[in-house]
C-alpha cells in the first residue's frame, strides 16, 4: 500500500516526460497527415504520385481477396470465344499449304448459335441478363449470310417472352473519322437499329470502355458517353452499369449508391451542345481473376443464402464464375432438347473472347485480364458493393488517422527506448563472439522500424479488405506515410538537439 503513491508519481513523471517530446510530435504528425488526407480528396491530387501508395495498397487488397469469397453477387458465366472456338470456324489447311490470317471479326454464325441457345432457355432457367462483348456493327464482308442469321435470332429474341435483357457492346468513333471536324462521338448505324429502338424490345446498346492509370493499369470503367445517333444525341451507358441495373432489378439500386450520380446526371450532360468528357469513372471492384492463358482456375462457391437458389434450385451450379468454350455452347444449340439450360439460371451471362485473334487483354490490379472478364468484375463488383465502392466517411478516416499517428508516435517512443537498451547491450557485448552479436539483431532499431512499417502496411491492407467487404474504400496510406515521415524527421531533429 505504501508503494502506490510512489508508483503513481513515477507514472506521472513518465507521462509528463513523454508529453513534452511525444505529444508535440503526435500533434505535428497528425496535422501533416490530416493535410495530406484533405488533399487526397481532390481528384487531381489523388491522380499524382501521392495517390500511388494507396493504389498499391488497394491493388494488394484486390489480390489478397481475389476468388476467395462469393459474396451476394449473382454468379457469372463466360461463354468464351476462345482459340478452340475459332479453330472450328477457319477453313482447313490443304496438304502442302500454309494457313492464312484468320478474319478480324468474331464469327457471327457462332454468336448467333450461342444466343439462340440462351434464347431458348425455359422461363425458370433463363439468365438475369446477357452481355455480348462484340460490336455487331463491324462489317463482315463475305459473311452476310451469318450476319442475317444473327439478325434473325435477335428478331426472335425481342419476340420471346422469356428472353432476358440483352446488352450488345458498341464502339463509337469521333466524327473526324467520318470527315467531320468536331470531337463528337458517332455511333455508327447497324442492321439491327430497329430492334434496339423498339421500346418493347429487350435489346440495348452499351459501351465497354475502361480507364487506366498512368501505368496503364485498368482501374475504372467509363459509366457513360454522349454519342450522336440518327435520332439525335443519346447517352450510351456502360454495359457493366446496364447489366448491374438489370441484375439489381428485383431489389432496386440503393438510394445512396455511387452509380446513381451517373444515372441522374447523364441525360442532362449529353443534352448540352458540347458535353465534357468524363475524366474519372467508376472504380472497378476487382474480385474475379482469370489471367491470360490460365485454364485451371477454380472459383469459389456461392453462399447458401444466394436468393437465386429459390428459382434455380439447390442443384444448380454453385460456382460464382464459370467459363465455357463458345464452340461447346454453339454445339449445344444444335442439340435442341438434348441440351440443358440450367447453367444459365439467374446468372450474368457474358459472351466474349479470350482468343488471340481479338487480343483483348488489359493490365489490371489482379493480372493481365481479358476485356470481357473485366466487364464481369465491373458488373458483379457493383452488386457486391451495393452500387459502387464508397469512400469511408471523413470522420472515420480522420479518427483512424489520429489513431495511426498515435501509434506511430508511440512506436517511435518505444523504439527510442529499445535503441537506448540496444546501445547498452552492444557496449556490454563488445568483446562477445559474432553469433552473440547476431542475437542482438532483433533489438536493432533499424530492424525494428522496418518490422513496424511492414506490420503497419499489412494492417492497412487488412483494414482495406475489411472495408471493401462492406463496399467501402479509404485513402490512408499517403496520409499515414506523411505522418510517419514527419515523425521520423522530428525524431532525427530531436537526436541532433
Amino acid at each position, binding site marked *: 500500500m505504501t508503494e502506490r503513491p510512489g508508483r503513481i508519481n513515477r507514472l506521472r513523471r513518465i507521462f509528463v516526460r513523454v508529453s513534452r517530446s511525444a505529444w508535440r510530435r503526435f500533434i505535428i504528425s497528425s496535422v501533416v497527415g490530416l493535410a495530406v488526407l484533405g488533399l487526397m480528396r481532390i481528384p487531381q491530387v489523388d491522380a499524382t504520385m501521392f495517390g500511388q501508395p494507396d493504389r*498499391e495498397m488497394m*491493388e*494488394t487488397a484486390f*489480390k*489478397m*481477396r*481475389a*476468388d*476467395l469469397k462469393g459474396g451476394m453477387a449473382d454468379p457469372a458465366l463466360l461463354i468464351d470465344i476462345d482459340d478452340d472456338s475459332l479453330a472450328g470456324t477457319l477453313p482447313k489447311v490443304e496438304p502442302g499449304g500454309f494457313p492464312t490470317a484468320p478474319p478480324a471479326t468474331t464469327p457471327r454464325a457462332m454468336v448467333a448459335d450461342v444466343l439462340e441457345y440462351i434464347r431458348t432457355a425455359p422461363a425458370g432457367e433463363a439468365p438475369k441478363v446477357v452481355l455480348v462483348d462484340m460490336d455487331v456493327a463491324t462489317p463482315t464482308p463475305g459473311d452476310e449470310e451469318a450476319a442475317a442469321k444473327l439478325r434473325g435470332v435477335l428478331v426472335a429474341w425481342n419476340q420471346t417472352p422469356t428472353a432476358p435483357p440483352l446488352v450488345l457492346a458498341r464502339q463509337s468513333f469521333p466524327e473526324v473519322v467520318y470527315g467531320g471536324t468536331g470531337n463528337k462521338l458517332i455511333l455508327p448505324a447497324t442492321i439491327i437499329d430497329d430492334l434496339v429502338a423498339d421500346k418493347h424490345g429487350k435489346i440495348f446498346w452499351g459501351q465497354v470502355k475502361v480507364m487506366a492509370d498512368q501505368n496503364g493499369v485498368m482501374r475504372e470503367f467509363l459509366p457513360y458517353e454522349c454519342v450522336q445517333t440518327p435520332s439525335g444525341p443519346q447517352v450510351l451507358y456502360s454495359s457493366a452499369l446496364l447489366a448491374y441495373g438489370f441484375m439489381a432489378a428485383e431489389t432496386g439500386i440503393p438510394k445512396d449508391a455511387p452509380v446513381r450520380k451517373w444515372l441522374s446526371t447523364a441525360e442532362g450532360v449529353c443534352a448540352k451542345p458540347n458535353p465534357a468528357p468524363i475524366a474519372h469513372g467508376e472504380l472497378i471492384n476487382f474480385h474475379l*481473376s482469370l*489471367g491470360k492463358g*490460365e*485454364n*485451371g*482456375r*477454380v*472459383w*469459389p*462457391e456461392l453462399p*447458401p443464402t444466394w436468393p437465386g437458389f429459390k428459382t434455380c434450385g*439447390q*442443384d*444448380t*451450379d*454453385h*460456382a460464382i464464375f*464459370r467459363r*465455357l*468454350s463458345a464452340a*461447346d*455452347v454453339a*454445339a*449445344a444449340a444444335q*442439340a435442341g*432438347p*438434348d*441440351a*440443358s*439450360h*440450367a*447453367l444459365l439460371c439467374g446468372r450474368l451471362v457474358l459472351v466474349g473472347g479470350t482468343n488471340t485473334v481479338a487480343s483483348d487483354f488489359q493490365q489490371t490490379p489482379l493480372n493481365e485480364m481479358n476485356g470481357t472478364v473485366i466487364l464481369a468484375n465491373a458488373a458483379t463488383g457493383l452488386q457486391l458493393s451495393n452500387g459502387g465502392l464508397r469512400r469511408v466517411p471523413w470522420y472515420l478516416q480522420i479518427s483512424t488517422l489520429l489513431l495511426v499517428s498515435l501509434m506511430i508516435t508511440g512506436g517511435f517512443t518505444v523504439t527510442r527506448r529499445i535503441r537506448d537498451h540496444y546501445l547498452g547491450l552492444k557496449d556490454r557485448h563488445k568483446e562477445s563472439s559474432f553469433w552473440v552479436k547476431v542475437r542482438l539483431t532483433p533489438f536493432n532499431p533499424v530492424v525494428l522500424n522496418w518490422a513496424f512499417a511492414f506490420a503497419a502496411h499489412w494492417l492497412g491492407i487488412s483494414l482495406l479488405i475489411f472495408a471493401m467487404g462492406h463496399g467501402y474504400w479509404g485513402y490512408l496510406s499517403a496520409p499515414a506515410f506523411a505522418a510517419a515521415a514527419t515523425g521520423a524527421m522530428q525524431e532525427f531533429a530531436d537526436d541532433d538537439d
Partner: protein
Amino acid sequence: MTTTRTTTFRLALAAGAAFATLALAGQASACAGAGVVTRIEGDPASVSIKRADGGAVARPRVMEVVCAGDVVRAGGGAKVTLSLDGRGSVQVTSSYQVAARGGAPSLAGNAYRAVNDQVLPDMKRLPWDVRLKGPDDPLGFALPTLAQGSQKLPAGNHSLLVRVLGGTGPYSAVLEGGSAPVSATSATGEIRLPSAALGAGRYTVTVKDATGESVTGQFSVVSPAQPVPDTYRELTDPEVRAAATAASLARGAPTTRSFEAEQLLDKAPSNGLDRQRVFDLIESYGE
C-alpha cells in the same frame, strides 16, 4: 423463474442444433458442382450419370452439371467430354468418377502472389505462376512406339512405351485387345509395358493415375505390308511390247484385257513401280 429460463435456454439450444444439422445436411446433399458435360458424341441414350447422392440421370444432356463423386458411364461407342473445374477437359469412353474440384485459390496463395508482385513488379511471373497453378494438367498419354501421326503398328512382338502427360503419379497402364491384358506401373511418367505378341486388330490402352482418374486410347495393329524391293525391276522390251499389243487390242475392244497387260499392271506396286506410270508406258507403246 430459474427453471423457466433453463428450459427456454435448453429449447433454444436444441432448436439451434436441429437447425444446424438440417442446414449441414442440406449443404451436403446439394450438388456442389465440379464441372459440366460439354459434348456427347454418339447415342445419348447409351450415356448415364450415377449421382454421388444415389440419384441417377438416365439420359444426360449437354451443359448438364456434374458433381464430385458422380460416375459418368458411356457405352455403345459414345464419347462424353467433361469440362472439370481446375482439371481441364476429360473424355469418357467407358466409366469415369468425377474428381473433386481441384486447385481452389487460398489466402496463402494470394498473399504469396501479392508479395511476389511487390518484390518483382516489372517481371513476368510465368515461373511463379506455374508453381502457383496448383492442379495438375489433365491426365493424358502418348504412345511414342507408334510412328508419329500414326495410329497403326505392324503386327509382331512389341514392348509398348506409354508416356503419361499430366495427372498425379504413380501411374498404371493396361493394354487390352490381345489374348491377355498386359499391364505395368510407374512412378514417373514413362511406363514400359512388357513385350507381347500383337496380332492384327484393335487394342485399347488405359492409363490410371493416383487419384483414380483414367483415360483410354485406341490403336490398330495391321498385318505387315508386302516388302518393297531394294532395286526396282526394269521392264524388259519383250514384256512391254507384249503389253503394248494388249493395250492396242484393249483400245479396240475396251472390255478385252490381255493376260500380259494384267500381269504387268497388277505386279507394278510389288515391283516398286507406279501403276499409272506403267499404264502410260503401255499406252505410249501402243500408239
